[in-house]
């Protein structure tokens, strides 16, 4: 008995630095934010929450953030499936392609944002191509579809890489067996591949979703008039100096994120 306590003491000792650091650098700041967001001197302790949630702007901002996050996640899933179907057959240059897809992950988001803004600009290369076809430029920067494209560009590699690593390890013979039995391509895709790739897709897309939901630097630069939660929090607190309101918004954002995470994990568990 005594030995066990000694052992668990050592375990506790080993665990403590990490937990202490997380506690000081994460939970304590979180606690401070919650404390700041409560209005002790107003008539209602949740004054800032109610003010934000009851204003038309507040709901609009939350809606916009969710729209962008869900839209970009959906696009990433579609793009990833398409790419996986192609790259599974290992066409020419597939390893180069896999390296390429790492670029949006390892390169700082701000540089990507600058590049995207330049590329999709009215005089950017993309619009030069488009003008060659339909004779007038289309506005992409600072629009919702534009933001969706940017988000997808930046965050789809996460979905793709996780799903791909999972699909790659699958046994090819299942697919071949299905083909031998006489299933056509669509059937193989619908009944064999997708169900097998589903856990990977879910695990990958949740990361993409989390990143889209919390994205900060990209909408800060490319958002124009569209300012999702993260940017609103930043402007309210760091630029307008209204830290209590900003804190309330931050807590709301964290709660929404946790809600989505839990529901996502539930779905994932059910599919297993």
């Amino acid at each position, binding site marked *: 008995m005594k030995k066990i306590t000694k052992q668990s003491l050592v*375990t506790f000792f080993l665990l403590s630095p990490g937990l202490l650091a997380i506690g000081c650098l*994460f939970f304590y700041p979180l606690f401070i934010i919650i404390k700041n967001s409560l209005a002790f001197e107003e008539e209602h302790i949740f004054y800032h929450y109610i003010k934000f949630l009851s204003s038309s702007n507040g709901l609009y901002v939350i809606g916009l953030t969710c729209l962008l996050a869900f839209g970009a996640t959906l696009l990433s899933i579609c793009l990833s499936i398409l790419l996986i179907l192609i790259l599974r057959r290992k066409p*020419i240059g597939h390893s180069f392609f896999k*390296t390429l897809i790492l670029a949006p992950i390892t390169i700082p*988001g*701000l540089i990507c944002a*600058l590049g995207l803004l330049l590329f999709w600009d009215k005089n950017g290369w993309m619009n030069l191509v488009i003008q060659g076809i339909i004779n007038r430029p289309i506005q992409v920067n600072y629009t919702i579809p534009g933001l969706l494209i940017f988000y997808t560009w930046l965050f789809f590699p996460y979905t793709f890489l996780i799903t791909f690593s999972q699909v790659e390890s699958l046994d090819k013979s299942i697919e071949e067996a299905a083909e031998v039995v006489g299933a056509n391509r669509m059937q193989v895709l619908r009944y064999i591949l997708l169900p097998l790739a589903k856990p990977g897709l879910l695990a990958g897309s949740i990361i993409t979703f*989390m990143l889209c939901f919390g994205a900060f630097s990209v909408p800060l630069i490319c958002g124009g008039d569209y300012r999702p939660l*993260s940017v609103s929090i930043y402007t309210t607190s760091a630029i307008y100096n209204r830290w209590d309101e900003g804190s309330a918004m931050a807590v709301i954002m964290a709660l929404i994120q946790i809600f989505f995470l839990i529901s996502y994990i539930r779905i994932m568990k059910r599919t297993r």
Partner: protein
Amino acid sequence: MHYTKKVLIITFLLCITIFIISPFLMIIVTSFARGWFGKQWMPQEWTFDWYKWAFQVANIGVILKNSIIIAVLAITMSLFIGMATAWAIARRPVPGKEILFSIILLPRMIPPITYALGISNIFYKLNLIDTYLGVSLAHVTLCLPFGILILASTFEGLDQRIIEAAQVCGASRWRTFFHVILPLVMPGILAAIIFTFTTSYNEFTLTIMTYGPHTVTLPVKTYLAIGDGYWEVASAISTILLIPSLIVLIIIQRLLKPEKIVGGFKGV
């Protein structure tokens, strides 16, 4: 039929490639261009002025130094703190391991902007704003969970029998550690170093809440250059910034499993 399909696939891949590469090419071209306004594919006048500017006025050298010092501090701290914890999680009986793990990973799951406000609040009181220690401590919040995740999975993979075999053969504790354990876990530690480096090097949200004039890092400088400088200069800075990122990219692709990086999302 077969032929057209092949062509279609290749065109599709080519399009995606162009979509991914072009923004970076556009940055590089912009960084050398002067007066590139109209509807032209390429600028008519080329110049090195923006690079001169980046070094002379934007002090890119000092900023690169800041970034690296902060990254090295953040990596060292995260690894020192993370090593013990990861070892305990991986190789010792810990009650509620899953819950513990999700607590440790929580900072990566909640948008950093939410607790960045709190961190800057605390750091203001402790006078940690605009110090290397302060900024790198803020980075530890994101680097540590990632470090623990990678280290724990490495330690888990250690085979107890090898360690026992070494001890049976008469190796002392230190000898076992240096000659058996260390070589076995080294790739994992290196992976942790690389991934925490990317995290710290790309981190923006927490940095912008804790930085000051003496601790401007490269992402913050890019933001400032995009926000109140010139895009030409911002492009030049970005092109310089791209180089370390590309080195890391090649290292990851060549030597590590790219899937691993997705556990550590870059500083969004």
